[in-house]
């Protein structure tokens, strides 16, 4: 029952200042929903921000508000765990553009109707800017560390590059400093699936009771493939048939892998807003940290005094090891203290969420300093 001992709090705040966006617009009254675990010390020096991934949420180690499933990083965050809440005050906020309480396309605009596609296109830096606003509101000047996997890693990098004095350590897992053509291509498949669904209705489906569930499910199916490894998929499903002994010579989900993906797609629509999916994937596609800093990645980190640790997984083909290595080299060139390690794990990109004991050791060791 160790988990019951975590001090968990679900909070929400409204940023007192308007939020300027990279796209040129300014958002007023931005709300940030966040969870905290553990206790902030008197010096406010033990705070760690965890940035969540594309379809993640702030419930790192608390039950999911819709599905009731355990927190997505419960194995990593808690008393005595690698991100130790006995010692650290852990904060995780829903990203700007999200659908778990922070301002996003489903939130109401000043005219009382949801923003929908009137919501401005946002960037990874905008997401971080909103969370820096949250830290300002909490009076936390400097973090012990920022931590993130996948899109969370992009936010951690953006935080380090743009607010270099505000963290002492940066841990980036299975991530990248820029979205590749292949990354953008997969996201575009997902967005087109959503927008091709007639129920998307130009994004104005709120309040109708029926959103573009088919489109969103297909988007999730395509994306989910990129989170797994070929080897992992083969091991889990092979060519095994689903609840049948013969092929049906039809288009039912004959294969287990089809059934699995359909389930993943459908269950995703219960917990995610299609417009949020459009906006967040767009933000990821726009991410290019070097471009933001004159084209040279090392220059992004020139002002940073933080320690860095980069972790990749050998079976991750979404953000392969070479991407982490590129970041590590840039940090080396900038003279930053950086560690980089490629861990062996069979689960592809999703390895950062799953049982990889070597990752636990690296995280515990890095944050323990």
């Amino acid at each position, binding site marked *: 029952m160790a988990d019951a001992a975590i001090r968990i709090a679900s909070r929400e705040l409204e940023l007192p200042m308007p939020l300027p966006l990279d796209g040129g617009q300014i958002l007023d009254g931005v709300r940030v929903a966040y969870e905290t675990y553990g206790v902030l010390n008197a010096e406010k020096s033990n705070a760690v921000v965890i940035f969540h991934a594309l379809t993640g949420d702030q419930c790192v180690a608390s039950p999911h508000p819709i599905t009731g499933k355990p927190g997505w990083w419960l194995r990593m965050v808690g008393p005595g765990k690698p991100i130790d809440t006995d010692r650290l005050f852990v904060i995780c906020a829903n990203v700007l553009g999200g659908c778990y309480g922070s301002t996003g396309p489903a939130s109401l605009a000043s005219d009382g109707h949801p923003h929908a596609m009137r919501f401005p296109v946002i960037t990874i830096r905008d997401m971080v800017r909103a969370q820096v606003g949250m830290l300002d509101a909490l009076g936390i000047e400097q973090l012990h560390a920022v931590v993130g996997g996948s899109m969370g890693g992009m936010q951690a990098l953006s935080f380090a590059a743009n607010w270099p004095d505000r963290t002492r350590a940066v841990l980036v897992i299975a991530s990248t400093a820029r979205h590749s053509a292949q990354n953008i291509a997969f996201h575009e498949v997902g967005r087109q699936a959503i927008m091709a669904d007639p129920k998307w209705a130009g994004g104005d489906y709120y309040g109708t009771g029926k959103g573009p569930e088919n489109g969103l499910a297909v988007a999730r199916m395509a994306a989910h493939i990129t989170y797994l490894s070929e080897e992992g998929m083969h091991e889990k499903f092979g060519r095994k048939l689903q609840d049948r002994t013969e092929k049906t010579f039809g288009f039912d989900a004959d294969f287990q892998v089809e059934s699995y993906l359909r389930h993943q797609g459908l269950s995703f629509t219960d917990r995610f807003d299609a417009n949020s999916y459009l906006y967040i994937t767009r933000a990821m596609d726009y991410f290019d940290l070097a471009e933001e800093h004159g084209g040279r990645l090392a220059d992004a980190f020139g002002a940073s005094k933080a*320690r*860095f640790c980069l972790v990749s997984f050998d079976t991750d083909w979404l953000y392969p090891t070479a991407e982490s290595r590129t970041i590590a080299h840039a940090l*080396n060139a900038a003279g930053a203290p950086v560690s*980089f*390690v490629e861990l062996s794990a069979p689960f592809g990109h999703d390895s950062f969420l799953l049982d990889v004991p070597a990752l636990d050791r690296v995280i515990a060791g*890095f944050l323990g300093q």
Partner: protein
Amino acid sequence: MIPLRPDLALIAANVAPGSRVLDVGCGDGALMAVLRDQQQVDARGMELDARGVAECVAKGLPVMQGDADTDLADYPDAAFDYAILSQTLQTTKRPDLVLDELLRVGRKAFVSFPNFAHWKVRLSLLWNGRMPVTRLLPVAWYETPNIHHVTVRDFRELVLAKGYRVEGEWFLSGDRPTSAAAAAWRAEHAVFLLAR
């Protein structure tokens, strides 16, 4: 605290406090930790084995997973006061090029290696006609990572041919120092400090 391996202790004793060091093939970071904790050295590492890197990260040491043969190219010229390569030279594909890289990224380089001309090695070859399996070379020829065995004389010759300067040399026999005069056959282990 576990005492350092003798060749590492020798290197640690000769690294100037407060300097910048790259330990290539740093293993679990034992040398780096001593340099950092006792000599205020800014120590960075490179290690091929992921478990070694994880150990280092757990000690708070900045270590890049990488290969001495290929990944030194990513460091700028003269980024370090010292580059250290301990017991790794003989495992590289091109020791001569690795040596060049060490002395490009470091102003000076410590290189340590097991001496293949130690008398036990010579005897094993002479009497048995077989590749030696000794304390410092404990693995049979077919599975040893040591693909470029080297002797003290070979190494001196390479350094001379490259035009590098020997600034220091130390020889170990059974973990004790032995004289340079008889090093060619009595040293089990050699440590050189080189400069451009």
